[in-house]
């Protein structure tokens, strides 16, 4: 019995170990390549043990100064503001939906479901945001389209409220004289911290990694986010290399594109802050998801 269990455990450990290495290795390679001398990258290719270490890529980025750091600022601002806004909207809407006694809550539920099942498509959304709401080329274009709320998370939070917060508690608060807002802020919200942290992290990841809105709605280089800059470099390279028609001139443009180590350094800078934040959220993350899943 014991031996059987330990065999299973050993296999499981080996399996998980391999998985972990498979996940960590690319990250490690990315960081190491960003610290590798450019010449040895071209001559010998990627390597975990580079022939020559170099901080040149990071020096280049720091010398560029404003562009990269501004982009960082934009990304951080958008993430902080976006997550806050999306949490306010999501938790309040989910709370309303979780209370069966609100007039019209069924209609609202259907409306939220509709946004999960269907979306307007790119061109109509673009017309809406650009021609009617006029948010093209403003910071709002990085906050609102497609990111502010998400039907899935609203339902996740709603299910959490429904199952983990006894309605008796809300009634008791009411009897003691608490108003709706007071009940929500002082009783419901503190009890739902795990799910708030989970949705907060999910939306933080989405905001941090988003480049698509920037590509579609932003023309002003001052509003470029870090992921947009990275993505643009990669797309430029792809464009130049996939268009054989570009002939001699493409080579000229291509040679001015930042080298591999610089690209890796930007990717590292883009990924690290979120990686660093992960462990602190993890305990809520696991709890929040299991509660939502098992009891829902």
């Amino acid at each position, binding site marked *: 019995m014991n031996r059987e269990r330990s065999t299973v455990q050993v296999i499981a450990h080996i399996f998980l170990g391999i998985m972990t290495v498979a996940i960590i290795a690319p990250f490690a390679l990315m960081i190491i390549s960003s610290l590798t001398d450019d010449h040895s990258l071209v001559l010998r290719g990627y390597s975990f043990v580079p022939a020559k270490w170099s901080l040149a890529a990071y020096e280049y980025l720091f*010398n*560029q100064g404003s562009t990269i750091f501004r982009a960082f600022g934009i990304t951080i601002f958008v993430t902080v503001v976006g997550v806050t806004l999306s949490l306010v909207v999501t938790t309040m809407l989910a709370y309303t939906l979780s209370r069966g006694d609100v007039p019209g809550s069924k209609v609202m539920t259907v409306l939220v479901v509709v946004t999960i099942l269907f979306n307007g498509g790119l061109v109509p959304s673009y017309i809406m945001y650009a021609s009617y709401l006029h948010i093209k080329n403003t910071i709002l274009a990085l906050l609102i389209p497609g990111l502010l709320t998400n039907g899935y998370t609203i339902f996740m939070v709603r299910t959490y409220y429904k199952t983990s917060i006894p309605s008796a508690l809300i009634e008791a608060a009411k009897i003691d004289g608490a108003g709706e807002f007071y009940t929500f802020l002082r009783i419901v919200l503190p009890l739902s911290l795990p799910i708030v942290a989970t949705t907060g992290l999910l939306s933080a990841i989405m905001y941090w990694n988003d480049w698509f809105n920037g590509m579609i709605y932003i023309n002003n*280089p001052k509003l470029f986010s870090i992921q947009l800059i990275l993505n643009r470099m990669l797309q430029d390279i792809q*464009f130049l290399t996939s268009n*054989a*028609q570009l*002939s001699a*001139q493409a080579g000229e443009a*291509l040679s*001015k594109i930042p080298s591999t180590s610089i690209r890796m350094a930007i990717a590292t800078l883009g990924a690290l802050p979120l990686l660093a934040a992960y462990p602190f959220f993890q305990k809520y993350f696991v709890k929040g998801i299991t509660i939502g899943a098992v009891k829902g």
Partner: protein
Amino acid sequence: MKRIFTAILAGIALLGTAIGSAAQGAKPYEVVVAYIVMGNVPSDNQAVQDAINKIAVPKVGASIKLVPLGTSAYSNQLNLVLATDEQWDIIVDGTIIGIGGHIARNQVIALDELLDKYGKGIKGVLDADMIDTGKIRNGKLYGIPPVKNFAGGFGYMMRKDLADKYKIDPAKIKSLDDVEAVLKLIKQKEPDLIPLVPPNVRASPFAPTVYNAYDTLGNNGGVLMNRGASLKVENWFESAEYRKLLERMHKWNEAGYTMKGAATNTDPISTIIKTGKAFSYLANTKAGFAAQETIKNGVEMVMADIMPGFACTDNCNGWLWSITRNSKNPQKAMEMLNLLYTDPAVSTLLIDGIEGKHYVKGADGLVDFPAGIDASNSPYYYNSPWLFPNQTITPVWTGFPPSYWKDLLAYNESAKKSKAIGFVFDPTPVKSQVTAISNVIEQYSLGLEYGDMDPAVKLPEYQAKLKRAGIDKVIAEKQRQLDEWAKAKGIR
């Protein structure tokens, strides 16, 4: 009292409307110009735009708004803008961007009349033949090519240090046989070096854009051999010349003259040369090409001419300046385009920025970056200046010969032109065949043209697949359209 008060109020109201309408009347139409940037999007656009407007508003009676975008953002936003009514007046279009689709969806307008009336200056800087290459569909002009090198030659680029060391005289290299002798020598003397790298990432030395021994007629196989000397459309892939090139390349590959893994390489060729890993490459050349390549590679290069300059339609209409259906004032848009093509001060502002701030003029008349600024941190620098309407009326940059633009124009002038220049093939009637053919080309061309595949085995397979994809039908259609065009133009 009350009456006086009312009168004053009325007076104020009148004055207010008068000022309002005066201000409105004085505000010129804003022409939005959107274009593609390959590299950093400059951050100092506003300052440059203001400087251009100081010239443009009095001259054209319209102001300009610059919208530079990165490659992927440009193609995405362009499609969205063209699908809506957002105002973009002037755009960069062309066969590379997909102008055929824009015309089919009526998103760009025909420019013939506008050009005759408001674009006279453009006709002064571009030959009629060159403008004709923008007549993409039904003989109507949908885009105007920028003034750049329209002709390309075929040449062999070598690192000067090694060429000098082994006493290789570039003037004596006249054919691929001569190149072969050089490669053999280098392989012998410098066994660690790659003798020959591809001209560009994922481009073969015998791609139509590099080895321009024939008029490509919009690509996909049906070509005019011998640099468009006759109007008979032939199958390039079945020609003896193509077979000979492939056999040569395969031989070079077996002998170890070429780069291993060239088909999967993504490092820019200039980086490979710069690191000292390789010796030479075959390239599509132009006037001042050696100077350009020296700057690009960071190593001094010398050029051997194998074939002189040659121009055909496909060299010219990859990039075109077009006016969209969304423009609310196409007349002003054309006048603005005319200004961009003809006014040296405006063109210099657009391409190089503001003097003293973005570039400085040296004693020799050449311009360079101001102290402490280079291509990587300049707030206004484009690495694709050839895309703008007219770079030849701007100052020459340090590192290039002072006569760079003159040489370029003279080169265009002297280059041999295909008989069919100005003819644009419309692939719509054979659309599915063209797609099928490009898939087959994608599958075989690099492997064969890098010499990785044995032409004795793979070339017949390639030719058979192209036949099945319908290459004969495309050639027949090309011939039909070409005959019609030649008849209308009176060319035999």
